[in-house]
Protein backbone atom coordinates (compact mmCIF):
# COMPACT_ATOMS: atom_id res chain seq x y z
CA UNK A 1 0.00 0.00 0.00
CA UNK A 2 1.14 3.51 -0.73
CA UNK A 3 2.14 5.75 2.12
CA UNK A 4 -0.53 8.16 3.27
CA UNK A 5 -0.01 11.90 3.31
CA UNK A 6 -1.48 14.37 5.76
CA UNK A 7 -1.33 18.16 5.68
CA UNK A 8 -1.80 19.73 9.10
CA UNK A 9 -2.45 23.45 9.06
CA UNK A 10 -2.13 25.35 12.31
CA UNK A 11 0.57 23.67 14.37
CA UNK A 12 2.11 26.38 16.54
CA UNK A 13 3.66 24.68 19.52
CA UNK A 14 4.07 21.18 20.87
CA UNK A 15 0.80 21.79 22.69
CA UNK A 16 -1.19 22.40 19.51
CA UNK A 17 -3.92 19.84 18.99
CA UNK A 18 -2.68 19.52 15.39
CA UNK A 19 0.57 18.24 16.86
CA UNK A 20 -1.18 15.52 18.86
CA UNK A 21 -3.00 14.43 15.70
CA UNK A 22 0.20 14.57 13.66
CA UNK A 23 1.86 12.28 16.18
CA UNK A 24 -0.89 9.69 15.93
CA UNK A 25 -1.00 9.84 12.12
CA UNK A 26 2.78 9.57 11.95
CA UNK A 27 2.65 6.60 14.29
CA UNK A 28 0.22 4.95 11.87
CA UNK A 29 2.65 5.49 9.02
CA UNK A 30 1.50 8.74 7.40
CA UNK A 31 3.86 11.36 6.02
CA UNK A 32 3.15 14.65 7.76
CA UNK A 33 3.30 18.03 6.05
CA UNK A 34 2.64 21.18 8.03
CA UNK A 35 2.56 24.95 7.65
CA UNK A 36 3.81 28.02 9.50
CA UNK A 37 2.20 31.45 9.12
CA UNK A 38 5.25 33.73 8.95
CA UNK A 39 8.97 34.08 9.64
CA UNK A 40 8.44 35.39 13.20
CA UNK A 41 7.19 31.96 14.33
CA UNK A 42 9.15 29.81 11.87
CA UNK A 43 11.84 28.73 14.32
CA UNK A 44 9.30 27.63 16.89
CA UNK A 45 7.17 25.63 14.47
CA UNK A 46 10.32 24.21 12.87
CA UNK A 47 11.66 22.86 16.13
CA UNK A 48 8.31 21.21 16.94
CA UNK A 49 8.13 19.85 13.41
CA UNK A 50 11.65 18.49 13.57
CA UNK A 51 11.00 16.77 16.88
CA UNK A 52 8.22 14.81 15.19
CA UNK A 53 9.96 14.28 11.88
CA UNK A 54 7.60 16.26 9.70
CA UNK A 55 8.36 15.78 6.04
CA UNK A 56 8.12 19.40 4.96
CA UNK A 57 6.99 22.78 6.24
CA UNK A 58 5.23 25.22 3.93
CA UNK A 59 4.62 28.90 4.58
CA UNK A 60 0.92 29.69 4.73
CA UNK A 61 -0.70 32.79 6.20
CA UNK A 62 -4.45 32.48 5.72
CA UNK A 63 -4.62 36.24 5.12
CA UNK A 64 -2.37 36.16 2.06
CA UNK A 65 -3.45 35.22 -1.46
CA UNK A 66 0.13 34.68 -2.56
CA UNK A 67 0.78 32.19 0.28
CA UNK A 68 -2.20 30.09 -0.76
CA UNK A 69 -1.01 30.17 -4.37
CA UNK A 70 2.53 29.19 -3.42
CA UNK A 71 1.36 26.44 -1.08
CA UNK A 72 -0.75 24.92 -3.83
CA UNK A 73 2.13 25.15 -6.32
CA UNK A 74 4.60 23.64 -3.88
CA UNK A 75 2.31 20.70 -3.14
CA UNK A 76 1.81 20.15 -6.85
CA UNK A 77 5.52 20.42 -7.52
CA UNK A 78 6.28 17.84 -4.83
CA UNK A 79 3.63 15.58 -6.33
CA UNK A 80 1.98 15.09 -2.96
CA UNK A 81 -1.41 13.36 -3.00
CA UNK A 82 -3.21 14.16 0.24
CA UNK A 83 -5.23 11.61 2.19
CA UNK A 84 -6.14 14.13 4.81
CA UNK A 85 -6.16 17.79 5.69
CA UNK A 86 -6.43 18.91 9.29
CA UNK A 87 -7.40 22.55 9.73
CA UNK A 88 -6.71 24.08 13.12
CA UNK A 89 -6.41 27.78 12.38
CA UNK A 90 -7.69 30.24 14.92
CA UNK A 91 -8.17 33.93 14.48
CA UNK A 92 -7.50 34.46 18.18
CA UNK A 93 -3.78 33.85 17.75
CA UNK A 94 -3.08 35.92 14.63
CA UNK A 95 -1.24 39.20 15.08
CA UNK A 96 -3.63 42.10 15.61
CA UNK A 97 -6.65 39.91 16.40
CA UNK A 98 -9.53 41.99 17.68
CA UNK A 99 -10.42 40.20 20.91
CA UNK A 100 -12.26 41.09 24.08
CA UNK A 101 -14.61 43.57 22.38
CA UNK A 102 -18.37 43.77 22.06
CA UNK A 103 -19.60 43.13 18.52
CA UNK A 104 -20.51 46.79 18.11
CA UNK A 105 -16.82 47.69 18.40
CA UNK A 106 -15.86 45.31 15.60
CA UNK A 107 -15.34 46.91 12.21
CA UNK A 108 -16.13 45.22 8.92
CA UNK A 109 -12.46 44.74 8.01
CA UNK A 110 -11.80 43.04 11.31
CA UNK A 111 -14.89 40.88 10.94
CA UNK A 112 -13.91 39.83 7.42
CA UNK A 113 -10.37 39.13 8.57
CA UNK A 114 -11.59 36.83 11.36
CA UNK A 115 -13.97 34.96 9.06
CA UNK A 116 -11.25 34.43 6.48
CA UNK A 117 -8.61 33.14 8.87
CA UNK A 118 -10.78 30.84 10.91
CA UNK A 119 -13.44 29.72 8.48
CA UNK A 120 -13.08 30.64 4.82
CA UNK A 121 -9.48 29.43 4.77
CA UNK A 122 -10.96 25.92 4.82
CA UNK A 123 -12.74 26.68 1.55
CA UNK A 124 -9.61 28.23 0.04
CA UNK A 125 -7.34 25.37 1.09
CA UNK A 126 -9.63 22.59 -0.05
CA UNK A 127 -10.50 24.38 -3.28
CA UNK A 128 -6.94 25.21 -4.26
CA UNK A 129 -5.55 21.84 -3.28
CA UNK A 130 -8.43 19.82 -4.71
CA UNK A 131 -6.39 18.31 -7.54
CA UNK A 132 -3.93 17.04 -4.97
CA UNK A 133 -6.51 15.26 -2.82
CA UNK A 134 -6.93 11.53 -3.17
CA UNK A 135 -10.39 10.31 -4.03
CA UNK A 136 -12.08 9.57 -0.67
CA UNK A 137 -9.72 11.81 1.31
CA UNK A 138 -10.75 13.25 4.66
CA UNK A 139 -10.82 16.85 5.87
CA UNK A 140 -11.16 17.76 9.54
CA UNK A 141 -11.56 21.21 11.12
CA UNK A 142 -11.85 22.46 14.68
CA UNK A 143 -14.78 24.38 16.01
CA UNK A 144 -16.24 24.93 19.47
CA UNK A 145 -19.51 25.51 21.27
CA UNK A 146 -19.16 29.28 20.86
CA UNK A 147 -20.80 28.87 17.45
CA UNK A 148 -24.08 28.27 19.27
CA UNK A 149 -23.87 30.47 22.37
CA UNK A 150 -23.00 34.09 23.10
CA UNK A 151 -19.85 34.78 25.11
CA UNK A 152 -19.59 38.34 26.40
CA UNK A 153 -16.90 40.24 24.46
CA UNK A 154 -15.99 37.22 22.34
CA UNK A 155 -18.96 37.11 20.02
CA UNK A 156 -16.74 37.70 17.02
CA UNK A 157 -15.33 34.22 17.56
CA UNK A 158 -18.86 32.77 17.75
CA UNK A 159 -19.55 34.11 14.28
CA UNK A 160 -16.36 32.65 12.86
CA UNK A 161 -17.14 29.23 14.28
CA UNK A 162 -20.71 29.44 13.00
CA UNK A 163 -19.28 30.20 9.56
CA UNK A 164 -16.86 27.30 9.86
CA UNK A 165 -19.51 24.78 10.86
CA UNK A 166 -21.71 25.71 7.96
CA UNK A 167 -18.71 25.59 5.63
CA UNK A 168 -17.95 22.06 6.87
CA UNK A 169 -21.44 20.94 5.84
CA UNK A 170 -21.25 22.82 2.56
CA UNK A 171 -17.89 21.34 1.62
CA UNK A 172 -19.08 17.89 2.65
CA UNK A 173 -21.84 18.30 0.11
CA UNK A 174 -19.75 19.64 -2.74
CA UNK A 175 -16.51 17.70 -2.23
CA UNK A 176 -18.36 14.49 -1.45
CA UNK A 177 -20.17 14.75 -4.71
CA UNK A 178 -17.13 15.55 -6.80
CA UNK A 179 -14.46 13.41 -5.19
CA UNK A 180 -15.96 11.35 -2.33
CA UNK A 181 -14.06 13.59 0.06
CA UNK A 182 -15.35 13.58 3.64
CA UNK A 183 -15.44 16.82 5.67
CA UNK A 184 -16.12 16.82 9.40
CA UNK A 185 -15.55 18.94 12.48
CA UNK A 186 -14.61 18.35 16.08
CA UNK A 187 -16.03 20.62 18.75
CA UNK A 188 -13.94 20.12 21.88
CA UNK A 189 -14.71 21.42 25.32
CA UNK A 190 -12.20 23.79 26.92
CA UNK A 191 -8.62 22.58 26.98
CA UNK A 192 -5.37 24.49 27.25
CA UNK A 193 -4.37 25.90 23.88
CA UNK A 194 -2.95 29.07 22.42
CA UNK A 195 -6.27 30.64 21.51
CA UNK A 196 -7.72 30.05 24.94
CA UNK A 197 -4.60 31.56 26.46
CA UNK A 198 -5.37 34.77 24.53
CA UNK A 199 -8.81 34.94 26.10
CA UNK A 200 -7.22 35.30 29.53
CA UNK A 201 -7.98 33.73 32.94
CA UNK A 202 -7.26 30.39 31.29
CA UNK A 203 -6.85 28.35 34.44
CA UNK A 204 -10.09 29.68 35.92
CA UNK A 205 -11.96 28.96 32.68
CA UNK A 206 -10.62 25.42 32.65
CA UNK A 207 -11.50 24.88 36.30
CA UNK A 208 -15.05 26.15 35.87
CA UNK A 209 -15.52 24.05 32.74
CA UNK A 210 -14.27 21.00 34.57
CA UNK A 211 -16.75 21.53 37.37
CA UNK A 212 -19.61 21.81 34.90
CA UNK A 213 -18.95 18.40 33.36
CA UNK A 214 -20.54 15.23 34.75
CA UNK A 215 -17.09 13.62 34.72
CA UNK A 216 -15.35 16.52 36.50
CA UNK A 217 -12.50 16.63 34.05
CA UNK A 218 -11.32 18.62 31.06
CA UNK A 219 -10.91 17.08 27.65
CA UNK A 220 -7.27 16.34 26.82
CA UNK A 221 -5.35 16.71 23.57
CA UNK A 222 -4.89 12.93 23.54
CA UNK A 223 -8.69 12.41 23.74
CA UNK A 224 -9.21 14.84 20.87
CA UNK A 225 -6.47 13.28 18.76
CA UNK A 226 -7.93 9.81 19.29
CA UNK A 227 -11.34 10.95 18.06
CA UNK A 228 -9.75 12.89 15.21
CA UNK A 229 -7.93 9.86 13.83
CA UNK A 230 -11.07 7.77 14.21
CA UNK A 231 -13.06 10.34 12.20
CA UNK A 232 -10.38 10.69 9.53
CA UNK A 233 -10.37 6.91 9.01
CA UNK A 234 -14.12 6.38 8.91
CA UNK A 235 -15.74 6.18 5.48
CA UNK A 236 -19.30 6.45 6.75
CA UNK A 237 -19.20 9.94 8.21
CA UNK A 238 -19.23 13.35 6.60
CA UNK A 239 -20.70 16.79 7.19
CA UNK A 240 -20.86 16.18 10.91
CA UNK A 241 -19.62 18.08 13.97
CA UNK A 242 -18.61 15.83 16.84
CA UNK A 243 -18.65 17.26 20.36
CA UNK A 244 -16.01 15.98 22.78
CA UNK A 245 -16.41 17.91 26.01
CA UNK A 246 -16.83 15.44 28.88
CA UNK A 247 -20.55 16.18 28.72
CA UNK A 248 -20.27 19.90 29.48
CA UNK A 249 -22.75 21.16 26.89
CA UNK A 250 -25.60 18.88 27.95
CA UNK A 251 -25.69 20.25 31.48
CA UNK A 252 -28.12 23.01 32.36
CA UNK A 253 -28.51 24.80 35.65
CA UNK A 254 -31.62 25.80 37.53
Amino acid sequence: MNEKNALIVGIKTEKSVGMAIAQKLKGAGSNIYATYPDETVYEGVKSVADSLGIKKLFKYDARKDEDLEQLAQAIKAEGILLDCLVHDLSYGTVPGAKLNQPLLNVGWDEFADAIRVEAFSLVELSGKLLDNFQEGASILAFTNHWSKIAIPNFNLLGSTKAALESIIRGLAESLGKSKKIKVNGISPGYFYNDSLARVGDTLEILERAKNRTPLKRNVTRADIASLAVSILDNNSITGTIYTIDCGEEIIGNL
Partner: protein
Amino acid sequence: MPPKNALVIGIANKHSITAGIAQQLYKNGYNIIPTYLNEKALPYVKEVTDELNVETLFPFTVGNEEQLQAIIAHLREKGMHLDAFVHGIAFASEIKKQLHEVSWASFKESTRISAFSLVEITGKLIQADLFNPGSSILTLTYIGSRVAVEGYNMMGPVKNILEALVRGLASELGDQRIRVNAISPGPVMTRAASGIGGFSDLLLTAQAASPLKRTATLEDIGKMAYEVMVNPAIDGAIFPVDCGSSTTFPVPSTEKQ
Protein backbone atom coordinates in the same frame (compact mmCIF):
# COMPACT_ATOMS: atom_id res chain seq x y z
CA MET B 1 -4.66 -6.65 32.78
CA PRO B 2 -7.91 -8.64 33.07
CA PRO B 3 -10.00 -8.68 29.90
CA LYS B 4 -12.73 -6.09 29.66
CA ASN B 5 -16.35 -7.19 29.68
CA ALA B 6 -19.21 -5.89 27.57
CA LEU B 7 -22.87 -6.71 28.07
CA VAL B 8 -24.48 -6.47 24.64
CA ILE B 9 -28.26 -6.46 24.47
CA GLY B 10 -29.95 -6.37 21.11
CA ILE B 11 -28.18 -8.72 18.74
CA ALA B 12 -30.88 -10.32 16.57
CA ASN B 13 -28.69 -11.59 13.75
CA LYS B 14 -25.53 -10.81 11.79
CA HIS B 15 -27.12 -7.69 10.29
CA SER B 16 -27.77 -6.13 13.71
CA ILE B 17 -25.95 -2.91 14.47
CA THR B 18 -25.14 -4.33 17.90
CA ALA B 19 -23.45 -7.25 16.11
CA GLY B 20 -21.17 -4.76 14.33
CA ILE B 21 -20.40 -3.10 17.66
CA ALA B 22 -19.80 -6.42 19.45
CA GLN B 23 -17.38 -7.41 16.68
CA GLN B 24 -15.31 -4.25 17.19
CA LEU B 25 -15.33 -4.69 20.98
CA TYR B 26 -14.22 -8.29 20.59
CA LYS B 27 -11.49 -7.28 18.17
CA ASN B 28 -10.21 -4.88 20.80
CA GLY B 29 -10.01 -7.53 23.47
CA TYR B 30 -13.41 -7.35 25.11
CA ASN B 31 -15.19 -10.39 26.41
CA ILE B 32 -18.74 -10.26 25.01
CA ILE B 33 -21.75 -11.15 27.16
CA PRO B 34 -24.71 -11.20 24.77
CA THR B 35 -28.41 -11.71 25.26
CA TYR B 36 -31.03 -13.09 22.92
CA LEU B 37 -34.71 -12.30 22.75
CA ASN B 38 -36.15 -15.84 22.53
CA GLU B 39 -35.51 -19.38 21.34
CA LYS B 40 -36.60 -18.49 17.82
CA ALA B 41 -33.89 -15.83 17.61
CA LEU B 42 -31.18 -17.89 19.30
CA PRO B 43 -29.67 -19.65 16.25
CA TYR B 44 -29.31 -16.29 14.45
CA VAL B 45 -27.73 -14.67 17.48
CA LYS B 46 -25.37 -17.63 17.87
CA GLU B 47 -24.25 -17.18 14.29
CA VAL B 48 -22.80 -13.86 15.45
CA THR B 49 -21.60 -14.80 18.91
CA ASP B 50 -19.91 -18.08 17.88
CA GLU B 51 -17.42 -15.91 16.02
CA LEU B 52 -16.83 -13.87 19.17
CA ASN B 53 -15.80 -16.78 21.33
CA VAL B 54 -18.96 -16.49 23.43
CA GLU B 55 -19.75 -19.40 25.75
CA THR B 56 -22.90 -18.28 27.49
CA LEU B 57 -25.85 -16.39 26.08
CA PHE B 58 -28.65 -15.08 28.24
CA PRO B 59 -32.32 -14.83 27.33
CA PHE B 60 -33.57 -11.32 27.94
CA THR B 61 -36.82 -9.50 27.36
CA VAL B 62 -37.38 -5.98 28.68
CA GLY B 63 -39.32 -6.10 31.93
CA ASN B 64 -38.37 -9.70 32.75
CA GLU B 65 -36.81 -9.22 36.16
CA GLU B 66 -35.83 -12.87 36.59
CA GLN B 67 -33.84 -12.87 33.38
CA LEU B 68 -32.00 -9.70 34.36
CA GLN B 69 -31.23 -11.12 37.79
CA ALA B 70 -29.87 -14.29 36.14
CA ILE B 71 -27.38 -12.17 34.17
CA ILE B 72 -26.42 -10.30 37.32
CA ALA B 73 -26.02 -13.56 39.28
CA HIS B 74 -23.79 -14.98 36.55
CA LEU B 75 -21.53 -11.90 36.55
CA ARG B 76 -21.27 -12.02 40.33
CA GLU B 77 -20.53 -15.71 40.40
CA LYS B 78 -17.72 -15.26 37.90
CA GLY B 79 -16.45 -12.17 39.70
CA MET B 80 -16.88 -10.19 36.50
CA HIS B 81 -17.40 -6.44 36.28
CA LEU B 82 -18.64 -4.60 33.23
CA ASP B 83 -16.65 -2.04 31.27
CA ALA B 84 -19.30 -1.58 28.63
CA PHE B 85 -23.03 -1.97 28.24
CA VAL B 86 -24.43 -1.76 24.72
CA HIS B 87 -28.18 -1.19 24.52
CA GLY B 88 -29.70 -1.85 21.12
CA ILE B 89 -33.32 -2.54 21.90
CA ALA B 90 -36.30 -1.10 20.08
CA PHE B 91 -39.86 -2.20 19.52
CA ALA B 92 -43.03 -0.50 18.36
CA SER B 93 -46.12 -2.62 17.81
CA GLU B 94 -47.86 0.11 15.81
CA ILE B 95 -44.84 1.19 13.77
CA LYS B 96 -46.86 0.89 10.55
CA LYS B 97 -49.48 3.38 11.77
CA GLN B 98 -49.14 7.09 11.28
CA LEU B 99 -48.40 8.93 14.49
CA HIS B 100 -51.92 10.29 14.95
CA GLU B 101 -53.34 6.75 14.80
CA VAL B 102 -51.08 5.30 17.49
CA SER B 103 -52.66 4.08 20.73
CA TRP B 104 -51.35 5.05 24.13
CA ALA B 105 -50.84 1.38 25.01
CA SER B 106 -48.50 0.92 22.07
CA PHE B 107 -46.68 4.19 22.66
CA LYS B 108 -46.21 3.35 26.32
CA GLU B 109 -44.94 -0.14 25.59
CA SER B 110 -42.52 1.18 22.97
CA THR B 111 -41.26 3.86 25.34
CA ARG B 112 -40.49 1.24 27.95
CA ILE B 113 -38.79 -1.22 25.62
CA SER B 114 -36.93 1.24 23.40
CA ALA B 115 -36.09 4.02 25.85
CA PHE B 116 -36.76 3.50 29.54
CA SER B 117 -35.17 0.04 29.49
CA LEU B 118 -31.87 1.92 29.35
CA VAL B 119 -32.64 3.39 32.78
CA GLU B 120 -34.02 0.14 34.20
CA ILE B 121 -31.15 -2.09 33.14
CA THR B 122 -28.50 0.47 34.01
CA GLY B 123 -30.09 1.00 37.41
CA LYS B 124 -30.10 -2.71 38.22
CA LEU B 125 -26.47 -3.09 37.12
CA ILE B 126 -25.46 -0.15 39.30
CA GLN B 127 -27.42 -1.47 42.28
CA ALA B 128 -25.52 -4.71 41.88
CA ASP B 129 -22.28 -2.70 41.73
CA LEU B 130 -21.29 -4.34 38.46
CA PHE B 131 -19.73 -1.41 36.62
CA ASN B 132 -16.03 -0.69 36.72
CA PRO B 133 -15.16 3.00 37.05
CA GLY B 134 -14.59 4.38 33.57
CA SER B 135 -17.35 2.19 32.14
CA SER B 136 -19.26 3.18 29.09
CA ILE B 137 -22.93 2.82 28.22
CA LEU B 138 -23.93 3.11 24.59
CA THR B 139 -27.33 3.09 22.95
CA LEU B 140 -28.59 3.47 19.39
CA THR B 141 -30.77 6.22 18.08
CA TYR B 142 -31.83 7.66 14.73
CA ILE B 143 -32.21 11.15 13.22
CA GLY B 144 -35.99 10.54 13.21
CA SER B 145 -35.79 11.85 16.79
CA ARG B 146 -35.01 15.37 15.54
CA VAL B 147 -36.85 15.52 12.26
CA ALA B 148 -40.05 13.71 11.33
CA VAL B 149 -39.05 10.95 8.92
CA GLU B 150 -41.86 9.49 6.83
CA GLY B 151 -42.54 5.91 7.86
CA TYR B 152 -40.64 6.19 11.15
CA ASN B 153 -43.86 7.30 12.80
CA MET B 154 -44.00 6.69 16.58
CA MET B 155 -40.32 5.78 16.83
CA GLY B 156 -39.35 9.44 16.31
CA PRO B 157 -40.70 10.65 19.65
CA VAL B 158 -39.58 7.44 21.36
CA LYS B 159 -35.99 7.90 20.14
CA ASN B 160 -36.10 11.50 21.31
CA ILE B 161 -37.06 10.27 24.78
CA LEU B 162 -34.09 7.90 24.58
CA GLU B 163 -31.73 10.77 23.66
CA ALA B 164 -32.96 12.85 26.61
CA LEU B 165 -32.36 9.82 28.84
CA VAL B 166 -28.79 9.57 27.51
CA ARG B 167 -28.16 13.16 28.63
CA GLY B 168 -29.93 12.64 31.93
CA LEU B 169 -28.06 9.43 32.77
CA ALA B 170 -24.75 10.97 31.67
CA SER B 171 -25.32 13.86 34.06
CA GLU B 172 -26.24 11.51 36.90
CA LEU B 173 -23.57 8.84 36.44
CA GLY B 174 -20.59 11.10 35.84
CA ASP B 175 -19.65 11.07 39.49
CA GLN B 176 -19.25 7.29 39.23
CA ARG B 177 -17.11 7.87 36.12
CA ILE B 178 -19.64 6.07 33.95
CA ARG B 179 -20.20 7.66 30.53
CA VAL B 180 -23.42 7.43 28.55
CA ASN B 181 -23.62 8.12 24.81
CA ALA B 182 -25.52 7.22 21.68
CA ILE B 183 -24.60 6.49 18.10
CA SER B 184 -27.07 7.68 15.49
CA PRO B 185 -26.48 5.62 12.37
CA GLY B 186 -28.19 6.28 9.10
CA PRO B 187 -30.59 3.57 7.97
CA VAL B 188 -29.17 0.05 7.97
CA MET B 189 -31.12 -2.99 6.76
CA THR B 190 -31.58 -4.82 10.04
CA ARG B 191 -34.27 -7.11 11.30
CA ALA B 192 -35.80 -4.26 13.30
CA ALA B 193 -35.75 -1.97 10.27
CA SER B 194 -37.65 -4.51 8.21
CA GLY B 195 -40.73 -3.61 10.27
CA ILE B 196 -40.63 -0.02 9.12
CA GLY B 197 -42.90 0.63 6.17
CA GLY B 198 -41.08 1.64 3.01
CA PHE B 199 -37.70 0.93 4.57
CA SER B 200 -36.00 0.07 1.30
CA ASP B 201 -37.14 3.47 -0.03
CA LEU B 202 -35.72 5.08 3.11
CA LEU B 203 -32.38 3.35 2.47
CA LEU B 204 -32.33 4.57 -1.14
CA THR B 205 -33.30 8.09 -0.06
CA ALA B 206 -30.54 8.19 2.55
CA GLN B 207 -28.08 6.92 0.00
CA ALA B 208 -29.17 9.60 -2.48
CA ALA B 209 -29.06 12.24 0.29
CA SER B 210 -25.48 11.35 1.20
CA PRO B 211 -22.81 13.36 -0.60
CA LEU B 212 -20.89 10.07 -0.69
CA LYS B 213 -23.90 8.31 -2.23
CA ARG B 214 -23.75 5.42 0.17
CA THR B 215 -25.09 4.35 3.55
CA ALA B 216 -23.08 3.53 6.64
CA THR B 217 -21.47 0.11 6.92
CA LEU B 218 -21.74 -2.00 10.07
CA GLU B 219 -17.97 -1.92 10.35
CA ASP B 220 -17.80 1.89 10.29
CA ILE B 221 -20.65 2.16 12.79
CA GLY B 222 -18.90 -0.36 15.01
CA LYS B 223 -15.61 1.50 14.81
CA MET B 224 -17.16 4.82 15.79
CA ALA B 225 -19.11 3.10 18.57
CA TYR B 226 -15.85 1.68 19.90
CA GLU B 227 -14.14 5.10 19.82
CA VAL B 228 -17.07 6.63 21.70
CA MET B 229 -16.98 3.88 24.28
CA VAL B 230 -13.26 4.08 25.01
CA ASN B 231 -12.72 7.83 24.72
CA PRO B 232 -12.81 9.24 28.27
CA ALA B 233 -13.92 12.70 27.10
CA ILE B 234 -17.04 11.73 25.16
CA ASP B 235 -20.12 11.89 27.37
CA GLY B 236 -23.81 12.65 26.91
CA ALA B 237 -23.22 12.86 23.18
CA ILE B 238 -25.21 11.68 20.17
CA PHE B 239 -22.77 10.80 17.37
CA PRO B 240 -24.18 10.43 13.86
CA VAL B 241 -22.61 7.87 11.51
CA ASP B 242 -24.75 8.42 8.45
CA CYS B 243 -22.53 9.39 5.49
CA GLY B 244 -23.74 12.97 5.88
CA SER B 245 -27.33 12.15 4.94
CA SER B 246 -28.74 14.11 7.88
CA THR B 247 -26.67 17.27 7.42
CA THR B 248 -26.89 17.84 3.70
CA PHE B 249 -29.98 18.51 1.61
CA PRO B 250 -29.73 17.28 -1.95
CA VAL B 251 -31.87 18.84 -4.63
CA PRO B 252 -32.50 16.34 -7.41
CA SER B 253 -32.40 17.92 -10.82
CA THR B 254 -35.58 17.74 -12.88
CA GLU B 255 -33.99 19.49 -15.82
CA LYS B 256 -33.19 17.41 -18.85
CA GLN B 257 -29.46 16.94 -19.38
